[in-house]
């Protein structure tokens, strides 16, 4: 009931804010852990907008997609944390500016 009181656009605005926070965090933070958390934040912002649109248009596809995203995010978290640990063991730092091996 209360759920209907809040207009859909508020959820979308919240989603956009969360996504922007995630992007900004991704760009400005140097710690790999924080960057990783920012990615999770972006994923959840997208999830929120999926759910909102699904509710607005009464389409269950959006809800299903969210489960997919969460599942992939869980897997990604496991792999990503493993990579982070491996990097830390190899280089003793998690500063992304020092992890620039992709440069030729």
């Amino acid at each position, binding site marked *: 009931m209360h759920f209907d009181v809040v207009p859909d656009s508020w959820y979308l605005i919240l989603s956009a804010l969360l996504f922007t926070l995630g992007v900004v965090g991704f*760009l400005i933070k140097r710690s790999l852990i924080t960057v990783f958390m920012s990615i999770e934040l972006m994923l959840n912002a997208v999830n929120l907008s999926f759910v909102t649109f699904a509710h607005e248009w009464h389409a269950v596809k959006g809800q299903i997609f969210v489960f997919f995203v969460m599942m992939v995010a869980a897997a990604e978290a496991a792999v990503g944390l493993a990579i982070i640990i491996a990097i830390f063991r190899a280089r003793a730092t998690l500063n*992304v500016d020092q992890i*620039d091996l992709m440069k030729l």
Partner: protein
Amino acid sequence: MTINLYLWLIPLLPFAGFLINGIIGSRLPKPLVSTVALAFPLAAFAVVARAAQLVFSHSIALPYVENVAGSWITAGTLHIDFGLALDQLTLVMLLVITGVGFLIHIYSVGYMGHEEGYWRYFSYLNLFLFFMTILVLAENYLLMFVGWEGVGLASYLLIGFYFDRKSAAEAGRKAFVVNRIGDFGFLIGMFLLLAQFGTLSFSKIGYGLALNPAYHGRLLTATALCLVIGACGKSAQLPLYIWLPDAMEGPTPVSALIHAATMVTAGVYMMARTHGILDRSPIALAVVAIIGATTAIFAATIALVQTDIKRVLAYSTISQLGYMFLGCGVAAYSAAVFHLVTHAFFKALLFLAAGSVIHGLGGEQDMRKMGGLRKKLPVTFWCMTFGVIAIAGIWPFAGFFSKDAILYEAFQQGTFGKSLWFVGLVTALLTSFYMFRLWFLTFFGENRNTATNAEYHGAAVHARSDTKLVLEAEHAHAIHESPWSMLGPLVILAALSFIGGWMGIGEGLGPFGRFLAQAVGPLPSSVATESGSSLELPLSIVAVIVALIGLYIAYLFYGSKNDRAARLAAAAPGAHNLLEHKYWIDEIYTTVIVQPVMLISRYVLGWLGEGAIIRGSAWLLAGIATLFGELLRRWQSGNLRSYSAWLAAGAAAILFFTVVGVVMGIGGVDIRNVWMGH
């Protein structure tokens, strides 16, 4: 009744010899190389002889066409076959090529016996026979051109046989380049033929000409002149004759086969083959006649003062080819081909005899160092004598009949023809003189070779051999007569030089003329009037008298030891100098044509063209690529945050343009519609 002549075997047999000797010849023992080199040309000669026997017994109708490998080129309306054809002209040429060619192969076994690269020599010689038979057997101009270029290649390889000698390598290159100029004319001529007739087949062009009896001059003249340029290159006529004297750098049998008997006559053959077009263009005919007559007398004057025995013969060849051109120019093609045949006999003989002399003297080619060889080389002497009398045109030797026929035909052609006849007659005088000069200088008087000892002997010819000790033992004696493998061909050719002209006795060149007339048309004189025939005897007598005068003058100057020749040279130093330096033609060509071309190549094409334009543009392109790469390299920082920032900026830009575009109404994708559309 269909009889298969197996024409395709004629070129392919020598080709097989070329392949065998060319690929594994270096590992075969010498006798086996000789066997292979002789067996295949002999087999080809046998095929030709069988064809000739069938033709002469009227078992087969000419022209006989054989399509060996189906269609060669088909492009639009252009259609060219791998067709071989045998007609009277081709048969005559084939008999000369394979017959004289085989004799010269035998001779080579003796002459080249001591040489390194024996197998290489014979594989080239067989390759030459392959291309030459292709040239005369071809049923269209393009296939003929293949043979035409091929004999040029074989000639190049054989002139440069002693490729470690700089002059030989240069002579080969000169021959090739000068021939390319002529070939250019030939190519243009073929294009013009295609433009007019849409085909290159001889029979179809002949048919096209027959359909339009009124088609004269204009484009046909241009076509004929282009083909004549090709013929001038191959047959060493003015102004493209300069390669032939230098071609004497090759081994002497090569000079006999390629640069006297067969390849250089390809131009004459081509004009006889093209007679349908030449006949329609009086201008082209006149040009051919003038080229022929001019070349004949021009080369003969140079031959007067040459001291190298092979060079005298080379200029003599050019001069005799001029006679053949003269014959073609007065539309007496069968007379020209008749002279071609007799010339093949006596000039091959002269070259081979000269080779025998050179061989006997251990590589000496300077006539001033010869003399008195009559007793030491008796067989060579008598063979050479037959050749000299034949080329001088003294009855009843071969050269008399053919040269006389050409001069007689020229005489029938009005004032223009009479002046040509006069030039020809003077040339006959000069020919007789320089040939008897060669004869006297070589075989009479006393031996002027002061350096005849074992050390000097054998140095030039056998210098390449690595078995020096054996050779010195073998050549310990001084001047020696050649082995019978060399003398045998000489004797046969001497006999042919004697009797070879008899087949042309009678009205319209006798049996030979009547046979050939079916392919190249009858002689103009036998078509025109009967009144001319009374002139034939007086003209012949005049020609023989002129030849005898030449003999007498040569005897006066060189028959006994005297200083008349030296005094004459001193009396007219300018003229003598001019002749001795061959009119400075080589020097003039070098200054006027070769050097400007070299300068243009070096500076305009080399510096501007290749240096500035080609290399410059390559550098420019490379510079642009480097510059952009340098700029874009900075983008690829390897910094994770920089990449993600660009990613985010890109996503934001796409979003921005989509939204702004929709809101402003200037395009873009409205995401609402995407969803609603479903």
